[in-house]
């Protein structure tokens, strides 16, 4: 904790867009992973209080989806599990540390914390489902002013339990709004498996409202990016609301240590860790270099954030 801290602008991770290389994508994925693992460490050592929801295992959804948007105008509305979305959007890792540490240099001055982030066109809130009509209204605003912007909103599979999601589906479809509903289907809501929460087929739900729906069963970041690019392009082109269902898996606990899933299920899932796949396409030297560089960035960001006085 006593490493020297250099002055200057806050540490940022490099972001990705549609043209990013596999190496750049891996760097961002790895940065998100490292960042969140460090959060869990900070919790377990008591440095951090409150709560946090990490996206361990789901990073490829964050990076894939967000790399498909046009950052000059598009909107991202994220949920409780939003660090990955946020870092993919802006890379502001130091200011996210500060925010989660409750310090005034955080992106929301420490008021929002993990679940309530804002920066430029990025928003998040910790109430399940309620953000969906809000993002729909944003899409309406953009459509009204003809900005060409698209609103992307993230929701978990469990959040399909909230009625307001369907109110928003209906309105988005009726008014043909440029909004993309990204459902991160990780098979669980907190401790509850989907089978105890979701009746019928997930994809049938948005479709029942006339929403064009894509499913991405691959957890590869480029596959997700490709699907999301189609959805974003279709929404931007006036094709009305789009839904993208990304099948994924949460490798970490729901929040801090509350994991009651079978150990074998977890260990098998770790074998399929999407970050492994993303690393595998790189040669070992490149991968190791990325990890060293990003590791140093995350460390620097953490140290600066921890040392910030308020």
């Amino acid at each position, binding site marked *: 904790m006593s490493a020297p801290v250099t002055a200057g602008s806050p540490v940022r991770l490099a972001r990705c867009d549609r043209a990013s290389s596999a190496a750049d994508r891996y760097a961002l994925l790895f940065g998100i992973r490292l960042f969140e693992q460090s959060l869990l460490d900070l919790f377990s050592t008591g440095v951090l209080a409150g709560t946090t929801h990490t996206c361990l295992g789901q990073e490829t959804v964050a990076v894939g989806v967000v790399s498909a948007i046009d950052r000059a105008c598009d909107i991202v509305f994220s949920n409780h599990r939003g660090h990955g979305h946020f870092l993919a959007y802006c890379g502001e890792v130091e200011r996210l540390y500060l925010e989660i540490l409750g310090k005034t240099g955080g992106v929301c001055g420490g008021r929002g914390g993990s679940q309530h982030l804002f920066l430029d066109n990025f928003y998040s809130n910790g109430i399940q489902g309620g953000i969906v009509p809000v993002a729909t209204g944003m899409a309406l605003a953009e459509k009204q002013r003809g900005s060409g912007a698209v609103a992307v909103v993230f929701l978990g599979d469990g959040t399909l339990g909230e009625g*307001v999601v369907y109110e928003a589906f209906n309105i988005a479809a009726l008014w043909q709004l440029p909004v993309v509903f990204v459902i991160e289907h990780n098979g669980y809501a907190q401790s509850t498996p989907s089978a105890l929460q979701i009746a019928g087929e997930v994809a049938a739900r948005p479709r029942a409202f006339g929403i064009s729906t894509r499913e991405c069963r691959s957890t590869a970041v480029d596959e997700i990016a490709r699907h999301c690019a189609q959805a974003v392009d279709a929404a931007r082109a006036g094709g009305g609301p789009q839904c993208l269902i990304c099948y994924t898996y949460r490798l970490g606990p729901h929040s801090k240590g509350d994991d009651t899933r079978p150990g074998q299920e977890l260990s098998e899932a770790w074998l399929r860790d999407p970050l492994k796949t993303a690393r595998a396409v790189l040669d070992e030297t490149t991968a190791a270099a990325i990890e060293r560089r990003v590791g140093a960035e995350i460390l620097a960001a953490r140290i600066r954030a921890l040392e910030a006085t308020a």
Partner: protein
Amino acid sequence: MPTVLEAINQGLHAMMAEDARVVILGEDILDPYGGAFKVTRGLSSAFPDRVLTTPISEAAIVGVASGLALRGLRPVAEIMFGDFLFLAGDQLTNHAAKFQWMFNDQVRVPLVVRAPMGARRGYGPTHSQSIEKHFMGVPGLWVVAPHILGDPGGLLRQATLECDAPVVFIESKTCYGRPLISEVAGMTVTEIADHVSPFPTVLLRHDRAADADGLMWCYGGMVPHCLEAIRHLFDAEGLAIDLAVTSQLSPVPASHIARVVDECHSALVVYAEEASAEHGWSAEILAQVQDRVSGSGRAARHVRIGGAHTPIPSGRALEAATVPGARDIIARVLDCF
């Protein structure tokens, strides 16, 4: 004078003409229907692109309005009956009211949710309530109510264009058809408003009584009943009761209360609201009034008048016995003398 309905309708027309950011949304608001209470009549004909009829989705109506507001528009949403406001309660309190503060003042959510409230129309338990009290005291959320002594159109404009935060705008169903009143014989009208509490309180003081026999507080749909009671008490009983009518229900206009209390030294303070007074609007006003009164070394008797602590029945006679009117106010005031 125009009616309250006309004033609000004209206010909406004027605002939409003045500012292209104003967007109206709600159930059944298109012409020729023009809304269940006809408040939005003519708007969809005049501004077809900015008047959106919605599905029956109160939560999403407010959610969509928040989204519009976050992106720079000035939405005015209608909830057909105020009774349905709880359906949008989470949107109002955990989304609209929170964004500005929790995002560290980096965003604004200027939206208005209009909600017709009140009984005396025989609409029964789910269409007659005054549930605004449950939305008072939410940090970041404003509750504002027009009335016949004020300028309902101007108030709505103020809420829509001059307030950068979400406002729940409580309209009284039974006042829609009433003409506005600018003068009350024998009483002087003062308006109190300031930077912190910009939605005005109207103070009516008897001209011929330096210190009146009492001071009455009310808002919204209770104004006609209070005025009637005050007139009767003066004419028939010789009692001079001044009247303070707030339009800013939440946050509490503490500065207005201080000024009224400092001006009116009555030893009797009466509070009248249509809902059951239990945990109602008047409890907070009373708390602040008594603080100011005793802080200035005086004492006062406080009397709260509200509806019965039951739902509101459909039957006419039953309903009339549930909701307070001029007669109840007169009786309660006379009890004090």
